[in-house]
């Protein structure tokens, strides 16, 4: 069944269009970012790309720094592919899809060096801020990777540190106006290869038939900060360079919406 679908999609791509009439490097519309959707989170954002919807929330904790980095705080990204968001997802511990998603989003933020980890330290070797970003799927209709990356960054942008009481414990109900100072806004864009064509923002049908994908994290100035190849087919060097160009260009467009 997929081979029929695949042949049809490839024929369309070769004539420069797609199942829903989009151009190859167009995102679905609307792309919406809604900030501050959860008032229990220290920062949150709901992102919609076409029918795909995710919500990201940031919680902070104070904990002991890791022994190898006594002067640094930490950051963690977790994703939950809720069975609420798709008939294909099941309850239970995160599967490999959710783990890869979390790690790819995490890597783009961490390796961009946009977060000042030393600035998160409160007391060397004793106390530091830890930033936990949870990205949750609400409706899974394709391209969760880019939606998750955008939501995580938007939630970080929305985040304000909570106040500390006299004993140095967090008063979660009291927010300060202190932000997580970001030196750059790393965003990931996934470019998929089907046949000999490159597309962004695949829908569910397109995702079923991709040969390979490359997720590229990039910064405001076009510097690359993370990459992840996926899919079963190999990529030629020329493919990779072309996919990077598309990803960096698209990341610039998405960044304007933040």
């Amino acid at each position, binding site marked *: 069944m997929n081979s029929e679908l695949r042949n049809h999609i490839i024929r369309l791509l070769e004539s420069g269009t797609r199942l829903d009439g989009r151009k190859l490097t167009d995102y679905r519309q609307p792309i919406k970012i809604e900030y501050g959707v959860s008032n*229990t989170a220290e920062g949150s954002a709901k992102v919609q790309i076409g029918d795909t919807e995710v*919500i990201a*929330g940031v919680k902070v904790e104070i904990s002991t720094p890791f022994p190898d980095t006594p002067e640094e705080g930490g950051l963690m990204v*977790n994703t939950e592919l809720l069975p609420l968001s798709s008939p294909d997802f099941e309850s239970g511990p995160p599967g490999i899809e959710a783990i890869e998603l979390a790690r790819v989003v995490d890597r783009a933020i961490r390796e961009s060096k946009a977060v000042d980890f030393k600035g998160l330290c409160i007391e060397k070797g004793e106390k530091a801020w830890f930033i936990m970003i949870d990205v949750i799927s609400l409706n899974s209709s394709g391209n969760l990777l880019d939606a998750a990356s955008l939501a995580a960054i938007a939630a970080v942008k929305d985040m304000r540190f909570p106040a500390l009481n006299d004993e140095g414990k967090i008063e979660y109900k009291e927010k300060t106006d202190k932000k997580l100072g970001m030196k750059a806004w790393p965003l990931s864009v996934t470019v998929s290869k089907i046949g000999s064509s490159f597309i962004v923002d695949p829908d569910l049908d397109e995702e079923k038939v991709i040969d390979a994908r490359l997720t590229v994290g990039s910064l405001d100035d076009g510097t690359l900060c993370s990459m992840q190849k996926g899919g079963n087919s190999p990529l030629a060097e020329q493919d990779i360079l072309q996919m990077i160009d598309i990803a960096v260009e698209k990341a610039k467009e998405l960044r304007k919406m933040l």
Partner: protein
Amino acid sequence: MSYKERKNKRGFDETRPMEAKVGVIKRADGSAYFKIGNTWAYAAVYGPRNLHPKFLQDPSTGILRCHYNMMPFSGSGERVRPGGSRRSKEISMVTEKALLPVLSLEEFPNTVVDVFIEFPQTEAGSRCAGITAAAMALADAGLAMKDMIAAVSVGRVDDKLVVDLDYSEEAYEGGPVADIPVAVMPSSGKITLLQMDGLVKKEMLKDLLAKAKAACAKIYEVQKRALKEKYTRVDEE
């Protein structure tokens, strides 16, 4: 000492502001969200669908499975670790029992109807908000229902009987408190969820159940309006 005034000048019989919408998760067979104050519940229904492993199947009826879960950032304090807790398992179970009486799943032997309930933010009353959202999602899924289900918590805060306790009332320290989540079949008036934490007299409980029914009648109106709106809404292009 007595409990004099609620936050935001809310009346003692008044719920927090409510908002409901149906059809909010496209991939689900039925879905809804329900907000009451700062508590926000999403519900999605999948099914009736095949049930695996096979030994769980019941040849005399379809079964209902409910899953209550808080998003990790939805608690007022520290991050809630993902994965089920004793609390979420128990709430899932009582949610199932609260919804089952209005369904006729014997028409769908060997199948399952899965109801997933998730919270982006919570501030008291989450199991009732979840049940209210789930009932709308079941209706949106087109399942035959004998009645609706609406749920609210009632209780006492010191000398006052109150509807829809908020967090400050659950944690009130100036006198005795009781928190009683109730789910009601609005047409028949029958009760499908009843739990209680705290201290009350039997006479007080009688009054509180009457208040719960009255509040659920209002919630039922919100549910009906949301369900009708889905079919009158013109999607803006």
